[in-house]
C-alpha cells in the first residue's frame, strides 16, 4: 500500500520536477500525460484508490504549479497548441471543486491585466460552459458529512456566488459577457436545475442526497440581490416539474426549507414576486410559513405591513398562497386582523404615506375576497368595529385618495358582513384608483390563480362587453333598416352639433340686476329662478355700475343660495356669478367675503366657496388677457354671425380670399427663410387691476385663523379648510406679482407659514410649501434678501428637512421645488451684484 502511495507521489514529484526544470516541449508533455492518467476514468490503468489519493492530496498542488508555469513561451514549446490543450484538460476534467477553487484563487491573486489572467478567464468560461458547475454542486450534495467540510463548503459557496464580482474586479472592462451577473446567474440557475434533476434521480434510485448546498447557494444569491436573475430561471422550471410529481414537490419544499435563516427573507420574497400565481407559489413553498417562524414573519408581517413596494399581482400571490391551505387560513385571518388594525388606526392614516395606505387597503380587499362566509361569521364583530373606526379616520382625511380608499374598503367590508340587507354606499367619482380597487373586490378567489402556464394575473378586462355593445347596437339598427323598404341612408350628410337643442323655456330672463336679486330671493317660480341664474353673470358684466350699487347684497344672496331644483351646472353658475360680482366691485365684495369667511354659522362648503371665488376673482383681476382665456367652456350664448358671402344666392363663386390663401400657402412652402424667429403671440398689456385691491383679498384671510369659533376650528379638526386657505393665500401671493403690496404680503405669509409648518395634515403642508414657492416667485429678489434674510434662512432649513424626511411624496417634491427656486434666486442675486 505504501509502495502504491509512493508511486503516485513519485510520479507527481517527477512531473513537477520536469515542469520546473525542463525547457523541452516533448518532455513536458510526457510528464503531464503521466499525471493525467490519474484523472481519466476510461482506460483505467490505475487503481481507484490511487486516483482518489491523487485528487485528494496532489491535485490542487499540481494545478497551482501548472498555473505558475503559464506563459505564452511555455505553451509554445509544442506546436499547434498541444500543450495548451493538455494544460486545459487538467482543469476541465479533474475534480470540479478543486479545479474551480484553484482557478478562482489564481484569478484573484493576479495583479493587473496579464496573459495569465486572460488565459485563466478563458479556461474558467470553458469550465462554466461545460457544465462543470453542476458537477461541483453535485459533488457537494453527495458529501454526506457537510459539517466536517464546512470550511471548504463556505469557500466554494462564496466563490460560486461572488464569481461575477471577483471577475469584474480583476478584469474591469475586459470581463467576458458570460461573467456578467445577468448572464452568470441564469446559467447558475440552469446548472442548479441539472443538479436537482440528478438528486431526484438518485432519490428515486433509493440513495440519499443533501440539498443543503443548493439552498445555501440560492440563499446567498438572493441575499446578493440577484433574485430576479436566478429565480427567473428556477421558477418556470420548477413550476413545470412540480406540476404532477410529488418527489419534485418535496424537493422544492426541502430546497426552500433548508435555506439558512438569514437568507429566508430574500428567497421567500423573491419567490413571491416570481411565481406566476398563488397555486404555483403554494406548490413551491409548501407549508413553509407554518414550519419556519422567520418565513412566517416575512410573509405575514414584513411583506404586508412593513413594506409597500410590491405590485398588486404579488399581493394576490401572497394572500392567495395563504388562502389555499386550510392550515394557512388561520394565518390569513390573523393577517386580515393585523391589516385592519393598521388600516383603522388614525395615527397610521395621518402619518404613513398614501402609497402604503393604498397597499394595505388593497391587501385587505384581497383578503376579504378570499374569505368564506363561515369564516366571516366568526369575526363579524371584529370586522364591524375595525370598519367603524377606520372609515371615520379615512373620511376625515383631507387627501381625496385616502378618502376614496376608506370608502371603498368600508363598502366592501360592510357588504361582506351583511351579505343580504342594506350596506354602506358612498359617493365617489370613478377614476383609475377606484376602478383598480373595485376590480380587486370583484375578483373571485378562483380567478386569482391562473393556469400553470399563466402569465401574471391580469384583472379580467371589463371593457370587452362595452366594446361589443356598440356593434350589437349597430346590428340592431341594421335590422331596423332591413325592415324598412328604403335601403339607402342619409350618411352622405354629416350632422352638425345639436347639443344646444334644449327644451324651450317660456319664462323671460330678467334684464336688470335688481330684478335678479328679487328673483333669486323671493321667487317661487322655479323656472324664473333658473333662468335668472343663467343670465346673471353676463348681466353683471354688462352693467358694472348697476352692480356696484348692490354688490354686497348680491354677493350675500349668491353666497347663501341653495340649489332649489336639480339644475345642471348650478355650482358653476353660482360661482361664476360670484366671481363676476367680485371682479366688478372688488373692494366691497372682497371685504364682505373675507369677513364672512371667519363668521359664524357657515358650512365648510360655503367657506370653501368663498376661497374659490376669491382665487378666481384674483386671477381675473390680475391678468386682463385671461378674461378671454379663462372662460370655462360652459354653454355660450347662442350667437349668430352672418357670413360674409357674395351678394347672389349662388355659392359657386369662389370666395376671393380662398385662392389667396392657397397661393400664400404654396409660396410659404417653397420659400426658404434664413432667420426664422419663433412667432410670438403678442401679450396683452394693461395696468394690473389687482394692484390696488390685493390687500382686501389677502390680509383679512390670514388674520384670524388661530381663533376658533364654536362651529369652526381651523387649527383643530377643520384642517381641510385650513389646507384650502393656505393654498388660497399662496395663489393670491402668486397673483400679487409686480404689485406694491407683494413685499408686506410676503412677509406676513412667511410668518403665517412658519407658525403652521409642523402641521400633521399633508394637505396643509403642501399648501404651505406652495406658498413658499409663490413668495419666492412674487417678492422681488433684492427685497427678499434684504428685508427677509432671517426668515428665509429659517425657511430654507425647514425646506431641506421636509425634502428629506416628509412622509408625503408630494410634499417632498414641492420642497425640492422651493429649494431649487431659492438656489436660482441666489444665483440671480449674485449676477445682479457682480
Amino acid at each position, binding site marked *: 500500500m505504501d509502495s502504491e502511495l509512493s508511486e503516485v507521489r513519485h510520479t507527481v514529484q517527477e512531473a513537477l520536477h520536469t515542469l520546473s526544470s525542463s525547457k523541452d516541449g516533448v518532455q513536458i508533455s510526457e510528464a503531464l500525460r503521466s499525471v493525467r492518467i490519474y484523472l481519466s476514468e476510461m482506460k483505467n490503468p490505475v487503481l481507484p484508490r490511487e486516483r482518489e489519493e491523487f485528487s485528494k492530496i496532489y491535485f490542487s498542488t499540481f494545478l497551482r504549479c501548472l498555473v505558475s508555469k503559464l506563459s505564452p513561451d511555455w505553451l509554445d514549446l509544442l506546436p499547434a497548441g498541444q500543450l495548451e490543450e493538455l494544460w486545459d484538460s487538467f482543469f476541465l476534467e479533474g475534480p470540479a471543486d478543486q479545479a474551480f477553487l484553484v482557478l478562482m484563487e489564481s484569478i484573484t491573486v493576479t495583479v493587473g491585466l496579464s496573459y495569465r489572467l486572460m488565459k485563466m478567464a478563458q479556461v474558467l468560461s470553458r469550465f462554466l460552459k461545460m457544465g462543470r458547475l453542476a458537477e461541483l454542486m453535485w459533488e457537494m450534495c453527495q458529501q454526506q458529512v457537510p459539517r466536517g467540510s464546512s470550511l471548504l463548503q463556505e469557500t466554494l459557496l462564496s466563490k460560486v456566488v461572488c464569481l461575477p464580482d471577483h471577475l469584474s474586479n480583476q478584469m474591469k472592462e475586459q470581463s467576458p459577457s458570460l461573467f456578467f451577473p445577468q448572464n452568470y446567474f441564469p446559467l447558475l440557475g440552469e446548472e442548479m436545475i441539472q443538479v436537482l434533476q440528478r438528486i431526484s434521480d438518485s432519490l428515486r434510485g433509493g440513495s440519499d442526497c443533501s440539498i443543503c448546498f443548493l439552498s445555501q447557494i440560492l440563499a446567498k444569491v438572493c441575499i446578493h440581490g440577484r433574485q430576479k436573475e436566478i429565480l427567473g430561471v428556477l421558477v418556470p422550471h420548477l413550476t413545470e416539474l412540480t406540476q404532477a410529481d410529488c418527489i419534485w414537490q418535496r424537493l422544492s419544499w426541502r430546497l426552500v426549507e433548508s435555506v439558512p435563516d438569514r437568507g429566508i427573507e430574500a428567497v421567500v420574497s423573491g419567490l413571491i414576486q416570481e411565481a406566476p400565481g398563488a397555486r404555483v407559489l403554494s406548490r413551491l413553498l409548501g407549508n413553509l410559513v407554518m414550519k419556519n417562524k422567520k418565513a412566517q414573519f416575512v410573509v405575514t408581517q414584513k411583506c404586508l405591513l412593513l413594506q409597500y413596494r410590491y405590485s398588486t399581482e404579488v399581493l394576490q400571490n401572497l394572500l392567495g398562497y395563504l388562502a389555499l391551505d386550510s392550515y394557512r387560513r388561520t394565518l390569513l385571518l390573523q393577517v386580515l386582523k393585523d391589516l385592519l388594525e393598521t388600516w383603522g388606526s388614525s395615527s397610521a392614516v395621518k402619518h404613513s404615506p398614501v402609497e402604503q395606505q393604498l397597499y394595505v387597503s388593497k391587501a385587505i380587499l384581497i383578503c376579504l375576497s378570499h374569505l368564506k362566509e363561515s369564516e366571516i361569521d366568526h369575526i363579524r364583530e371584529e370586522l364591524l368595529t375595525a370598519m367603524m373606526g377606520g372609515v371615520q379616520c379615512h373620511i376625515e382625511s383631507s387627501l381625496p385618495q385616502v378618502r376614496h380608499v376608506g370608502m371603498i374598503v368600508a363598502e366592501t367590508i360592510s357588504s361582506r358582513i351583511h351579505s343580504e340587507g342594506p350596506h354602506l354606499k358612498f359617493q365617489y367619482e370613478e377614476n383609475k384608483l377606484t376602478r383598480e380597487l373595485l376590480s380587486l373586490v370583484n375578483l373571485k378567489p378562483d380567478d386569482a390563480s391562473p393556469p400553470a402556464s399563466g402569465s401574471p394575473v391580469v384583472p379580467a378586462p371589463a371593457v370587452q362587453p362595452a366594446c361589443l355593445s356598440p356593434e350589437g347596437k349597430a346590428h340592431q339598427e341594421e335590422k331596423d333598416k332591413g325592415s*324598412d323598404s*328604403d335601403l339607402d*341612408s342619409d350618411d352622405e350628410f354629416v350632422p352638425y352639433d345639436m*347639443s344646444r337643442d334644449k327644451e324651450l323655456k317660456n319664462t323671460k330672463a330678467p334684464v336688470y340686476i335688481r330684478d335678479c336679486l328679487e328673483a333669486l330671493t323671493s321667487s317661487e317660480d322655479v323656472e324664473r329662478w333658473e333662468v335668472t341664474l343663467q343670465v346673471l353673470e353676463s348681466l353683471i358684466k354688462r352693467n358694472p355700475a348697476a352692480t356696484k350699487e348692490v354688490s354686497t347684497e348680491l354677493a350675500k344672496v349668491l353666497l347663501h343660495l341653495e340649489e332649489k331644483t336639480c339644475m345642471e351646472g348650478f355650482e358653476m353658475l353660482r360661482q361664476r356669478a360670484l366671481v363676476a360680482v367680485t371682479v366688478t366691485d372688488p373692494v366691497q365684495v372682497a371685504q364682505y367675503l373675507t369677513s364672512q369667511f371667519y363668521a359664524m354659522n357657515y358650512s365648510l362648503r360655503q367657506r370653501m366657496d368663498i376661497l374659490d371665488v376669491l382665487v378666481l376673482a384674483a386671477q381675473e383681476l390680475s391678468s386682463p388677457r385671461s378674461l378671454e382665456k379663462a372662460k370655462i367652456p360652459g354653454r355660450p350664448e347662442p350667437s349668430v*354671425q352672418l357670413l360674409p358671402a357674395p351678394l347672389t344666392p349662388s355659392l359657386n363663386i369662389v370666395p376671393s380670399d380662398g385662392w389667396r390663401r392657397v397661393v400664400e400657402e404654396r409660396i410659404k412652402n417653397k420659400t426658404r427663410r434664413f432667420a426664422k424667429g419663433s412667432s410670438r403671440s403678442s401679450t396683452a398689456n394693461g395696468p394690473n387691476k389687482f394692484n390696488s385691491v390685493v390687500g382686501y383679498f389677502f390680509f383679512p384671510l390670514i388674520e384670524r385663523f388661530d381663533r376658533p369659533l364654536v362651529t369652526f376650528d381651523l387649527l383643530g379638526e377643520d384642517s381641510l379648510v385650513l389646507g384650502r386657505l393656505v393654498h388660497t393665500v399662496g395663489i393670491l401671493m402668486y397673483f400679487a406679482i409686480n404689485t406694491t403690496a407683494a413685499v408686506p404680503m410676503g412677509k406676513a405669509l412667511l410668518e403665517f407659514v412658519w407658525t403652521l409648518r409642523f402641521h400633521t395634515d399633508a394637505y396643509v403642508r403642501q399648501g404651505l410649501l406652495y406658498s413658499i414657492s409663490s413668495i419666492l416667485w412674487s417678492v422681488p429678489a433684492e427685497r427678499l434678501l434684504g428685508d427677509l434674510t432671517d426668515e428665509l434662512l429659517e425657511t430654507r432649513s425647514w425646506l431641506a428637512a421636509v425634502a428629506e424626511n416628509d412622509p408625503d411624496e408630494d410634499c417632498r417634491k414641492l420642497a425640492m421645488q422651493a429649494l431649487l427656486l431659492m438656489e436660482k434666486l441666489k444665483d440671480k442675486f449674485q449676477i445682479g451684484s457682480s
Partner: protein
Amino acid sequence: MCRRLSLDVEKFQECTRLAVCQSLLFLPGRCSWISLPVMALAPPSPQFVLRGSQSAVNTLHFSCRSKAHSPPLLFSGSLGGLIHVWNLETRRVDTTLDGHAGQSVYWVKTLEGQHLLLSQGRDLKLCLWDLAEGRNAPVDSLSLDSVGFCKGSVLTEGTQGCWLLAVPGKDMDEVQVLDMPSKTSVCTLKPEAGAKVGMPMCLELWKPASSSGPLLLAGYEDGSVILWDVSERSVLSRLACHEEPVMSLDFDSGRARGVSGSSEKVLCVWSLDEQQNLKVCRTQELTNPGIADVAIRPDGKILATAGWDHRIRLFGWKQLKPLAVLDYHSAAVHCVAFSDPGRPGEQLLAGGSKDQRISVWSVYNQT
C-alpha cells in the same frame, strides 16, 4: 446663464399654473370636473337675413327658375297683409303688393314662371296677380267661404294656362276643387257624415305618374290625413297619425312618402303603397312641440321643419336622420321653403318667423 434663468422661469410658471388648476379643480371634496363635449361641427349660421317685412312672416315662396335675365325672387306673405317680393341678388324688396286689405296673407305661390302670383289672405279672398312689366295690382280674385288657416294647393295640368286649385270649402269639413282660371267647381270633397275629422288644415294636390286622375292629400283637425281621389270624389285611405291637428304636410311623389307635422312633439312619416293605402313608416320625436311647416327639398334629400320653438330643424329625408338645428330666430318660425332645384350647390332654404325676419340658409349644398 440668462437663458437658463428664463427657462426656469417658464418652468415655474408652468408649475404654478398647474398648482392653481389643481387647487381650483381637484381640491378634495369637490367634483368639479369640467366635461368637454365631443366636438361636432358647429351649427351653421344663416347666409343672410331679410329684414323689413314689418310684421310676422306667414308664408314664403321661392321663384328662381326663370328666364336668364330676371333675378331669383323670394315672395313672402306677412301678417300685415303685404306681399313682399325680395330680390335675392340685391337682398332688397323689389315690390310690395297690397291686395288683402290689411288682413294676414298666409299663402303665396307663383304659376308659370315668375309673373303669375297667387295669394290667399284672411280677408277670405284669393288673389291672382300678374306681375309682368312692373304691374302690381291683382288681376282677378276669388272669394272663399272658409275662415280657417288652411292653405290652398295648386296642380298645373298639362294644357297651357289651366290648373286645378284646392281650397277649403263652404262647409266646415269640406274641400273644394276648382278648375282655374275658369273658376268652375270640379268637385266638393266631404268626408262621410260620421267621420268627424274637423276642418281641413293643409292640402296637397298631386298627380301620380301611374293613375290618370289627380289625388289630394288633406290633413285635418283631428290629426288624420286623408287621401282623396279627386275625379272619383272618394276617400282612398285615411290615416290617423296625430293626436292634434295636422299643421302641415308635404309629399314626395317620387318615393310615395309624405311627412306631416302637428302641434305635438312628433313628426310623422307615412308612405303610400300600391293599393293606395297610407301607413305610418316612422315617427320622429322632437325636443319641443309644435311644427308650423314642413318642406321636403325638391331633390328629395333633406326635410326641413319650422318649429314653434324658434328653430328650423333639418333631417335627412331618407332615414330621417337629424342633421341640424338652425337656431337663429327669436320667435316661432311660421314657414320654411326650399328654392327650386337649380344646379347642385345653389339650393337655398328660407325660414320666415314671427320675429318679422326671413333667414336664408345655404346648408348641405356640397354634393
